[in-house]
């Protein structure tokens, strides 16, 4: 795993009651996304998370469908996708790890190849945006192909979306999704007003995606990696 030194960062959205600048404690992160082979091994040892046994409440019908569509050897080193948040939580737990928090993930993902915070670099942003604006139809690269950032963590951008532990923190507060203030921010023009950096479109997209799924969803382009306390 890679050690991520603690530090401060400014979240895209300033939530009510939360500090403007968020302090992230040091933690360990997997260098790579979990790949298909690793996840398959897990479902063999913990069979209730296998395709056959998983309860519908924990994953949609497209759970792990890549194993039905391709040869396992061909996709062994690709990031595992079509995996639900529940399954990802269970996987990390089985490794004595956990999913990173949203703040941890965003903090680590700001690092460019050479800087702890690359997010002010237009070029760094552009590169991230380019991936977001390409259709997902092309095949996935192997996890090892993702570029390493300052911390030695590979492929945080440009491979797949990644899950975080508290992906819907913002939206599940309040009594109804539809009325929560953040929900409005995400959908309406008003969003720009409370977003700390309205031109960080890439971050906007990650927040939008995170609030579009629930914990049983299995998406074609959503994978994960695990984290661990020091």
């Amino acid at each position, binding site marked *: 795993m890679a050690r991520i030194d603690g530090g401060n960062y400014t979240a895209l959205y300033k939530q009510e009651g939360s500090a403007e600048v968020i302090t992230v404690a040091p933690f360990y992160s997997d260098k790579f996304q979990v790949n298909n082979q690793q996840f398959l091994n897990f479902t063999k040892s913990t069979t209730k998370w296998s395709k056959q046994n998983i*309860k519908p*409440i*924990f994953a949609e019908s*497209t759970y792990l469908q890549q194993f039905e569509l391709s040869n396992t050897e061909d996709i062994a080193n690709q990031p595992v996708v079509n995996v639900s948040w529940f399954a990802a*939580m*269970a996987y990390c*737990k089985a490794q004595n790890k956990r999913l990173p928090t949203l703040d941890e993930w965003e903090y680590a993902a700001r690092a460019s190849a050479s800087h702890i915070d690359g997010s002010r670099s237009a070029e760094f942003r552009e590169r991230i*945006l*380019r991936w*977001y*604006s*390409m*259709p*997902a*139809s092309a095949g996935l690269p192997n996890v090892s192909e993702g570029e390493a950032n300052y911390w030695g963590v590979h492929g945080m951008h440009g491979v797949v*979306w990644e899950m975080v532990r*508290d992906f*819907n*923190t913002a939206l*599940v507060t309040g*009594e109804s*999704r*539809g009325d929560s203030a953040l*929900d*409005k*921010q*995400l*959908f*309406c*023009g008003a*969003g720009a007003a409370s977003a700390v950096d309205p*031109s960080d*479109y890439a971050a*906007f*997209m990650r*927040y*939008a*995606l995170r*609030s*579009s*799924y*629930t*914990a*049983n*969803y*299995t*998406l*074609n*382009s959503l994978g994960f990696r695990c984290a661990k306390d020091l």
Partner: protein
Amino acid sequence: MLCLIIDLGQGTSTATDIRLNIEVQLMREEMIMFDNVKQAVTLLLIAAAFMSGNQLNAKELPIEQAVLTAAPHVPPPITRDYSARMVVNLDTTEEIGRLADGVKYTFWTFGGTVPGSFIRVREGDEVEFHLNNRPDSKMPHNIDLHAVTGPGGGATSSFTAPGHSSTFSFKALNPGLYVYHCATAPVGMHIANGMYGLILVEPQGGLPKVDKEFYVMQSEFYTKGKYGDEGLQSFDMEEALTEIPDYVVFNGSVGALVGDNAINAKVGETIRLYVGNGGPNLVSSFHVIGEIFDAVYIEGGEMINRNVQSTLVPAGGSTIVDFKVDVPGTFILVDHSIFRAFNKGALGMIKVEGDDDLVIYSGKQDDSVYLPEGGAIQTITQNAPPPVKAASLAQRVQFGQRIYQQNCMACHQSNGEGIKGAFPRLAGSDYLLGNPKKSISALINGLSGKIVVNGESYNGVMPAVNLNDEQIANVLTYVLNTWNNNGGEITPNNVAEIRGGH
């Protein structure tokens, strides 16, 4: 737990309650592995989602599947005189398509096209909307229909992850022509990538009958490369923020409404255009060159203005224009903020076939020298330059330049490169350079019908230009000796020969 039970209280079917209770029991067991309340809440929300299908109170309206069409086509008028439950099935897609010749772009679409499918319902209909986000999408999408009365115009209820499908219903209360668009953050980018379209809520009793209806939607694209730069272009955030687009187009790409894709009509027909503006930023000064709109439904609403030349279409707004085509010819649709038309692509064509009506439009009847009253006052003519005859090739080129700027540049552009898909290039044109004399007749008589210039075909109309032999000789000589063209000279005698021989 309590909150879940309250939620379920609204359900009517006991069978579902029981099923749900079982699910909840199951979850209780599993929940032990999750370590805080938030995750439990997530589970409960999922359970509630299982239920939600039950909460639609289906009314006893006849069910109809909405016809969806891609621009420039419009679904047929609705003739029934009762309300229906209109079922709309719309996919959101992300795919690479053509923005201009040689230029590609990753479009995000409603229904696989830009602009998105045209939806037509009747005032009072209940619309059951299914928004399906394709599994190979990367982005979540949703839809905000301006025809919806309700929070976000459906945006919150239709927020859909890749590979999922959302259903919501609304009642079409207000007649009119409405824009719909994606409203997922970052909204500007979803719109800039092509996520908009039109929904017509036809008034009860319908709109006045016309012969032909078409769907035209303007929008802009902000690309990393400049206008015409080849290859797959990506979205340019900086340009979008400063509102300086590279492309302003009708129906999603340069040339989507010209040449073989032009709108066709016959003399005497009445045409209705449903015009929308997806933006994301610019307001359109919509105009059809050579036509006057008989009726404009201002901003797509109920108020009608008559005899209008240009009408404003706000970003995120619409207009309906009706006009009768009385004479044959090609009528050009433009955004009359005119550099957008000639330099960024906002150009379309309506080709009208049929017989001339010389009373309505005569064509050029006479060309004579204009002598203002009091022509005897010599000061004016004394200051005016004497009629010039070019004495050398260099002079011919020099005089020709001015004529070019005044008569040709609007279409063929100052760099002679024309506008792909509308006006052919003169710089390096094999058509022109292969036989320059052929173009003399094009200038004297005008040119129409299909021609091929450097492998691209054009089927446009160049009007005859009103220039004398000397002027035609000068302008063509200028063209032949500019932009690395291979030189040569056309003399007034060459022109006279062709004029005489005609």
